[in-house]
């Protein structure tokens, strides 16, 4: 039988999704549910001095108006993954515009909304720091960079001395804006208490983290918290942590003694669950005349909230440490606190912003050296990870450059800016490297082989729309010799064996080995049962093969139904586990991005007209969902390059374009046909299937490839995203 893994299997949840049968958090029919509406501040800094709830409380259907004055006191946040404990109405302080200041519960949504707008809050306003750029001189060193696992700074050799002495240099500052994830499904939670046990249906990328957070904050054992989330309507990082709205919903449900539902508005999504912070990055590159890098310095600053809300540092320099071979490399990360919500991970956190700076600078260096941009990267190819001083588990980046360049027709490029045209329209070709760490975290899974040959399996993981259901189904089908149609994989319930949050492209590499191990355990149990049978005399497990509900051996066959009946079992259960990543290798995926833009020389309109991305991401478990990830990631990158920016009113620190009419993401005519290439190769280290995650990799390097193409088209180097009409009008 051909392997199912690798095939472009249609997503197994596709029909449910297109017919509306897939149930998202807000859609669970929980009897007796009432509705909550969040109220958010309209000042950026200060204190609430008065809350007039009288009008709201008297309105029809209102069940509770919860403010810092009467909110339940939550337990101290003891830290831990995904815990965001504030703002949860624990005090009267206001630290950003759009902060939660009250939650109103009523029997219907309309009544809750009406009461919410009748609430009167009076503030004593303090001076606010509303923009990062006005406060760069207050930059500070992160205190818990990468969870405290490493220093925010790193050094190898002496980058400054080497830079000073070098022949050819680039020294430039790059900026990326605040961006919001904007998944289609807004954050939503339904919470129901039964005594001191709570069930929450919530849109999350991590049911384990949600369970842990709620247990911690409400001071109850994790076993008393059940989290259910079978489908996620997109996350991109903003559903990675368990943000205050989920906590506040549980708080409200406890207060009114009924199940409560809270669904955020689009505007509230801009101040409730993080964002990609603004960055200001200084990059210095120096090379010898032959184009060999002699110094790299990357000083990254990212915007933070006020520190009492937590800490998130955008790790912009991590790729810089390992992407090229260079003896002298220095990287720093700093934070600038402003009165803003806490930022968070957003698709390819660190790399998306950091590689924009590094790969734009590499393009500037190529121009200064008069070396082809691909050639410059090949001359500085890193065969091993010089930062970690380890070999890569698998690195086929050279092939990515080669296959990408060939598919794109890169050799036809005239290197001079403004040299390529179609009639009056300027054509620009640009490229950039992509990289993203490959990772794996502990996960568990459970598999049940049933008498009729079908399989039920589960793990407390998530499917963000990326294809977890489908890929795990394929893994099981291969392991247990069944058709994918006879496999039912369940996820998104904290009563299942635990798995990590789905972020950092870890789900496939973490969960699939656990599923595989669970299958192997079940198979082993089955074979032991058979081998104990006198009819199996003379056989060993090496003789046995499971296919379509029958164990086959030379000249003998053992139908599963009979084996189980004889053993008096309904099913055979196997459990499997993955540990954290193996230590001896540097684990990274790579890619090469090639973009063509067309720029109207008079009107400045920039459109991406052709795109090729070639990726080295290990073995691809499903060619179709895999390609979808690439197309989606590249589209996300087009948005980052040309459209996306959350604008802040400098006077009030309030976001001004907090809705999808004004926060622009690409629409169909902004996205050309995207040619994607998976460079063949299996990762021999990360997981037994040879796979690596691919959710974030494809968006890394898109923005610089486009920026470099814009430079090539126009001769204008734009170092501040997004690149817009006014940047290239001349």
């Amino acid at each position, binding site marked *: 039988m051909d392997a199912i893994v690798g095939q472009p299997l249609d997503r197994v949840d596709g029909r449910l999704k297109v017919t509306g049968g897939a149930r998202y958090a807000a859609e669970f029919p929980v009897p007796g549910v009432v509705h909550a509406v969040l109220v958010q501040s*309209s000042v950026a800094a200060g204190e609430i001095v008065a809350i007039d709830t009288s009008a709201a409380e008297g309105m029809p259907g209102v069940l509770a108006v919860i403010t810092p004055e009467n909110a339940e006191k939550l337990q101290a946040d003891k830290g831990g993954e995904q815990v965001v404990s504030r703002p949860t109405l624990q005090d009267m302080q206001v630290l950003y*515009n*759009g902060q939660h200041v009250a939650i109103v519960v009523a029997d219907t949504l*309309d009544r809750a*909304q*009406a009461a919410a*707008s009748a609430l009167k809050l009076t503030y004593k306003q303090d001076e606010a720091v509303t923009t990062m750029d006005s406060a760069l001189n207050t930059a500070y060193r992160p205190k818990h960079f990468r969870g405290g696992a490493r220093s925010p700074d790193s050094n190898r050799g002496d980058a400054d001395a080497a830079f000073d002495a070098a022949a050819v240099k680039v020294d430039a500052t790059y900026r990326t804006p605040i961006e919001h994830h904007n998944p289609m499904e807004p954050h939503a939670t339904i919470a129901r208490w039964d005594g001191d046990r709570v069930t929450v249906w919530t849109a999350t990328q991590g049911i384990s983290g949600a369970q842990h957070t709620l247990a911690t904050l409400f001071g109850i054992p994790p076993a008393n918290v059940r989290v259910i989330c079978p489908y996620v309507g997109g996350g991109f990082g903003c559903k990675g942590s368990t943000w205050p709205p989920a906590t506040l919903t549980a708080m409200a449900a406890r207060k009114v003694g009924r199940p409560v539902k809270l669904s955020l508005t689009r*505007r509230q999504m801009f101040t409730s669950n993080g964002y990609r912070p603004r960055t200001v990055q200084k990059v210095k590159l120096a090379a010898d005349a032959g184009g060999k890098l002699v110094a790299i310095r990357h000083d990254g600053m990212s915007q933070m909230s006020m520190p009492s809300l937590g800490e998130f540092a955008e790790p912009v320099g991590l790729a810089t440490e390992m992407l090229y071979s260079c003896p002298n490399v220095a990287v720093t990360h700093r934070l600038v606190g402003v009165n803003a919500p806490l930022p968070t991970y957003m698709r390819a956190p660190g790399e998306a912003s950091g590689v924009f700076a590094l790969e734009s600078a590499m393009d500037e260096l190529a121009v200064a050296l008069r070396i082809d941009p691909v050639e410059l990267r090949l001359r500085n190819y890193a065969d091993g990870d010089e930062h970690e001083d380890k070999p890569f588990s698998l690195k086929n980046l050279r092939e990515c450059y080669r296959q990408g360049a060939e598919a794109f027709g890169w050799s036809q490029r005239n290197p001079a800016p403004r040299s390529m045209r179609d009639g009056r329209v300027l054509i620009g070709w640009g490229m950039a490297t992509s990289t993203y760490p490959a990772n794996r975290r502990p996960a568990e899974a459970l598999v049940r082989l049933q008498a009729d040959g079908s399989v039920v399996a589960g793990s407390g993981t998530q499917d963000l729309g990326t294809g977890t259901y489908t890929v795990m189904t394929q893994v099981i089908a291969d392991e247990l010799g069944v058709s994918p149609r006879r496999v039912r994989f369940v996820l998104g319930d904290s009563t299942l064996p635990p798995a990590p949050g789905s972020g950092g492209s870890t789900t496939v590499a973490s969960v699939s080995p656990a599923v595989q191990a669970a299958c192997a355990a079940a198979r082993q149990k089955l074979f032991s049962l058979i081998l104990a049978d006198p009819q199996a005399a003379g056989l060993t497990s090496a003789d046995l093969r499971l296919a379509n509900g029958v164990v086959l051996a030379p000249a003998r066959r053992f139908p599963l139904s009979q084996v189980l009946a004889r053993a008096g079992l309904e099913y055979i259960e196997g459990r499997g586990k993955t540990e954290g990543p193996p230590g001896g290798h540097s684990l990274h995926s790579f890619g090469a991005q090639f973009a063509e833009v067309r720029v109207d020389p*008079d*009107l*400045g*309109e920039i*459109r991406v007209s052709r795109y090729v991305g070639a990726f080295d991401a290990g073995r691809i478990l499903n060619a179709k969902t895999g390609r979808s990830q690439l197309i989606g990631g590249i589209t996300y990158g087009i948005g980052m390059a*040309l*459209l996306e920016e959350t*604008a*802040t*009113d*400098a*006077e*009030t620190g*309030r976001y*001004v*374009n*907090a*809705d999808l*009419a*004004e926060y*622009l993401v*690409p*629409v*169909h*005519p*902004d996205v050309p046909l995207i040619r994607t290439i998976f460079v063949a190769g299996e990762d021999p280290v990360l997981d037994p299937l040879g796979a690596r995650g691919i959710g974030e990799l494809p968006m890394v390097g898109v923005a610089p490839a486009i920026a470099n193409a814009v430079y090539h088209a126009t001769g204008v180097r734009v170092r501040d995203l*997004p690149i*817009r*009409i*006014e940047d290239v*009008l001349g």
Partner: protein
Amino acid sequence: MQSFGYLDPADADAAIAAAAAPGGKFIAGGTDLMQLMKDDVEAPTRIVDVEKLPYGAIEANGSGLRLGALARMSDVAAHPAVQRDYPVIAQALLASASPQLRNMATMGGNMLQRTRCHYFRDTGFPCNKRNPGSGCPAIHGENRLLAILGGSEHCIATHPSDLAVALVALDTSVELQGVGGARRTVALGDFHRLPGDTPQIETVLQPGELITALVVPPSAAARRSAYLKVRDRASFEFALVSAAVALEMQGNTIADARIAMGGVGTKPWRLPAVEAALRGQAATPENFTAAAGLAVEGAMPAGKNDFKVKLMQRTLVRALSTVAA
């Protein structure tokens, strides 16, 4: 959103009477009003649905084009006579919003859609237009999208409609019906008001006055017309700058020119000085560039929209060259 009543009157007089009473408001396609109500920007206590009133016809004949106030954007854009004799209208419509919205939105509602100024649409901000006298944070704030012409110290918000720009260029008039059956006709160019010190008053409409039709006179220029819309995103975005240009040519000489621009003015921005400068001139790049210079006379950019001064001229030159060619 505040709770409100809903009325579905059988005839125009009943509708007008209901809308004229305090708290009354017409609703047509609802694509703008519903959003404003959800965001608490508008809070009518009674909405008066006009969709059943008999003003949906599109009539085209020798005396011009008559667009019923309730005609849908999609239907007008697809109408053969509109496409043939008034291409600027069809193009402006097809460059507007999205197919779903165009299927709902009406001619009358389009003229009365409200500004996209970010500050106006978020009650967390002060705004003179929404809350007279509260101030205008946009003038010194995020004003990239806002007007460079026609503003006052109280408001610099643009009128966002593409269609209105095309219609203003073509000398369209607006047919109105008021309380007690009073009818009048107003030139579309006089229909919208400059903000001055009353930015909350956007049109010359009286309370309860209903738009029944938009009437476009026929012209040779209308037949040779086009709409050019410049924006960051390739579709589904309001104009940064747009131009509606209609030319009557005699050989290479411009016999008549009708020009209006969008994204730059506090109302659909007709450019009579540019038209006058072009009339009788040869259609040359030099003449277009010189005329475009007149377009931005008096422009008062506010910082983040400074680029519109240049972009406005370039857009106009491009549109003129395209239509004249």
